[in-house]
């Protein structure tokens, strides 16, 4: 009786096992390739002439394409244009478009769409009217050729117009059919198609089988909104997501030790500096600006607090750019308290009995503006600088503010010196030099103005030859550092943290990531 019961149990178990194997075999083979990427915030909207935030840009990059793409190593490669050229002056730019490309809604990609899109970029709906205003007119000699006539020569046309978020080209047909709804149901030509958006939770993209390029290999690309850095880390470690965008500094070492996790730091085009306001005392005096730099050991601070995410650098142009001349070439103000004291004395300051620097009986007071975690370790670095200044005899403190209020005060010039960054997705030097240091540049928050520098920057923008441009930009960087407008902190690299089973993920130092080659190994 007992043997019989055992027998039937064995049969039952064998059947069950066979059933499981039978069921799991084909199912296993068919497990869809779904990659889950964590986002800090939800996407905003996908009218490409209005995309300004990194998150939306990241997702848009999977759906839309530009005429030209930046490669992982900072070069350029064809995208929707197979070839392009400018006339020797750099005023007329011709793009030869890829043929046979269709938008996700089946409508053809051609010169008419490109013309329509870039003209919209100049229109009232666009947040890019200023950069796009360099375009005088656009002509389409045939279905696959587009010619941009600029108002004047511009060697940085690709960077300023084509490679911006507004360079993503949407389907004209879908845009006209959907109207305002297009911003929430985007249609492009990219490797992934819009599928689902559950607001505040996730965006799901499906593979575009008709994409002109190789791949993508994934069936689905899911972006999950996880605002909290600690939560992102737990989700990564428990397999809830494959790739995260941030982790608290305190978790980094543990993550690096985890055999299932890959931590990647790549140099990026993101500069960080304490920027002096030269329109008001005490930093209207170049000697005080230099003295403060000599009084602080910035290299030590950066290496102690922020490496390897932030690597010390000494120029307005990122060290990863072709226009950066290399370390030690540009004038600099390394840690040298004696020199700092000498410069302050020359500027009319005296050290009182308590060791404090004063002028006309008034102590030299410095308030460092810092945002709260907008830039990596910004508050900590500012505090360390203030600490060293105090030890040197300069009364220094840090004013930490929430970003919106901070930006307002700094834009209004209410600061003495502020911790600021400049993020770009390209090594093109002009988008750093012209924005930060040219008279009235859009990122020039310190009232900097030097006619000689402005003239060189103008000339560099009108020069097409890269070697000649580099010489001009090195000269510009030299002048900027001589003026000591910026107390360089470094370049913030980009960090990617992902699970080991994610194969073929080859992120670029400039936003956004591509996922066309990614596969998930099991």
């Amino acid at each position: 009786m007992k043997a019989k019961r055992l027998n039937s149990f064995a049969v039952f178990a064998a059947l069950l096992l066979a059933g499981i194997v039978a069921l799991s075999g084909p199912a296993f083979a068919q497990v869809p390739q779904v990659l889950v990427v964590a986002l800090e915030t939800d996407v905003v909207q996908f009218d490409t002439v209005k995309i300004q935030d990194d998150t939306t840009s990241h997702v848009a990059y999977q759906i839309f394409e530009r005429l030209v793409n930046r490669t992982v190593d900072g070069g350029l490669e064809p995208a929707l244009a197979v070839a392009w050229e400018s006339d020797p002056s750099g005023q007329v730019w011709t793009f030869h478009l890829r043929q046979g490309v269709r938008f996700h809604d089946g409508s053809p990609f051609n010169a008419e769409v490109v013309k329509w899109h870039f003209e919209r970029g100049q229109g009232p709906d666009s947040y890019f009217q200023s950069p796009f205003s360099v375009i005088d007119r656009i002509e389409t000699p045939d279905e696959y050729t587009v010619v941009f006539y600029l108002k004047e020569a511009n060697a940085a046309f690709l960077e300023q117009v084509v490679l911006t978020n507004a360079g993503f080209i949407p389907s004209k047909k879908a845009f006209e059919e959907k109207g305002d709804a297009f911003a929430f149901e985007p249609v492009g030509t990219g490797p992934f198609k819009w599928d689902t958006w559950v607001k505040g939770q996730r965006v799901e993209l499906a593979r575009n089988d008709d994409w002109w390029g190789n791949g993508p290999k994934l069936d689905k690309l899911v972006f999950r909104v996880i605002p909290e850095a600690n939560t992102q880390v737990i989700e990564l470690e428990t397999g809830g997501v494959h790739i995260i965008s941030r982790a608290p500094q305190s978790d980094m070492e543990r993550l690096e030790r985890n055999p299932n996790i890959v931590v990647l730091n790549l140099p990026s085009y993101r500069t960080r500096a304490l920027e002096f306001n030269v329109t008001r005392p005490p930093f209207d005096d170049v000697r005080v600006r230099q003295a403060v730099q000599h009084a602080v050991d910035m290299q030590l601070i950066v290496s102690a607090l922020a490496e390897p995410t932030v690597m010390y650098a000494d120029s307005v142009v990122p060290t990863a750019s072709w226009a950066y001349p290399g370390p030690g070439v540009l004038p600099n103000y390394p840690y040298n308290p004696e020199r700092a004291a000498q410069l302050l004395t020359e500027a009319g300051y005296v050290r009182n009995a308590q060791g404090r620097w004063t002028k006309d009986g008034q102590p030299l007071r410095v308030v460092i503006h810092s945002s709260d975690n907008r830039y990596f370790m910004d508050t900590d670095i500012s505090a360390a600088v203030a600490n060293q200044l105090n030890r040197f005899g300069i009364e220094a403190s840090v004013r930490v503010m929430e970003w919106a209020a901070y930006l307002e005060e700094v834009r209004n010039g209410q600061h003495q010196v502020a911790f600021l960054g400049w993020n770009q997705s390209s090594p093109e030097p002009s988008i750093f030099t012209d924005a930060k240091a040219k008279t009235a540049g859009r990122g020039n928050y310190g009232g900097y103005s030097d006619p000689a520098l402005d003239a060189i920057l103008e000339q560099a923008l009108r020069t097409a030859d890269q070697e000649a441009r580099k010489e001009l930009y090195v000269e510009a960087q030299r002048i900027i550092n001589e003026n000591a407008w910026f107390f360089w902190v470094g370049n913030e690299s980009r960090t990617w943290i992902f699970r080991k089973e994610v194969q073929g993920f080859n992120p670029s130092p400039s936003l956004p990531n591509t996922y066309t080659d990614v596969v998930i190994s099991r």
Partner: protein
Amino acid sequence: MSQYVVRKLLSSILVLLGVSLAVFLILHLSPGDPARLLAGPEAYEEDIAAIRERLGLNDPLHVQYGRFLMGVLRLDLGNSFRTSRPVTQEIAARFPYTVELAVASILWSLPFGIAVGVFAARRPNSPGDGLSMGMALLGVSMPTFWLGLLLMLLFSYYLGWLPASGRGGSLLTLEGWRTIIMPALTLGSPAAAVFARITRSSMLQVLDLDYIRTARSKGLSEQRVTYRHALRNALIPVVTMAGLQFGSLLGGALVTEQVFAWPGIGTLLVNAILSRDYPVVQGCILVIAAVFVLVNLAVDLLYSLVDPRITYS
């Protein structure tokens, strides 16, 4: 009764008007330019100016507030600066999730808090009382942020029982339940602690009254005295507190939603404040305030159910 409700509703409108004006003024007086934040720090001045003009931010403040009020009368809260979508749609997409989380939190914290409170009140100054009230103190004082992360470490990281974050779907699905457990525990913990403390002190007061002594002298069982005679009268302050707590759960779910990536109105509001998306901030706070007012009106009406001696005129 109906007169009372109408009077209450009318005074609620005044409250909401005051809330909307206060929020409007605080937003516009605090530093931060929505157009600049929208365009990004790397934007050109001309583009920022154009955005400011298009958003109507150059109009005088009273014109902007008037426009907002006129919109509210038409149930139109304006369009989000960031997404250009109607604020009502933005809120409608998120608010149900916050309500869902608040309801789930109150559903466990209220009975649990009352049970602990009764348990403690029945044996005052005993070790059991001390332990219960110690736990309640912990529940009130522990930051939800920290509690949330601890739960996540335990249930997701070490035990692997529950997904760490996100909303798995409707509560009709298993995944929906699995994802709401930790946020509801986190959000409800301080509320449960408050309910336990209030119930205990209210019960202690009632248990000391003459009619309880009478009930006991009649030979009623302690069970019957506690639950039939004492608890019902002791519940009045608990009901009041439940209304207040539910309101603050709606508005205060902010941190919990952020930690658990719960897609409610809290995360919407945080992002709107950080980006100075005035219409969304105004809309969210108005909706939260309106629900708060309505819940408390409902609580007022509930009194008469709990205690028939209370009538409204």
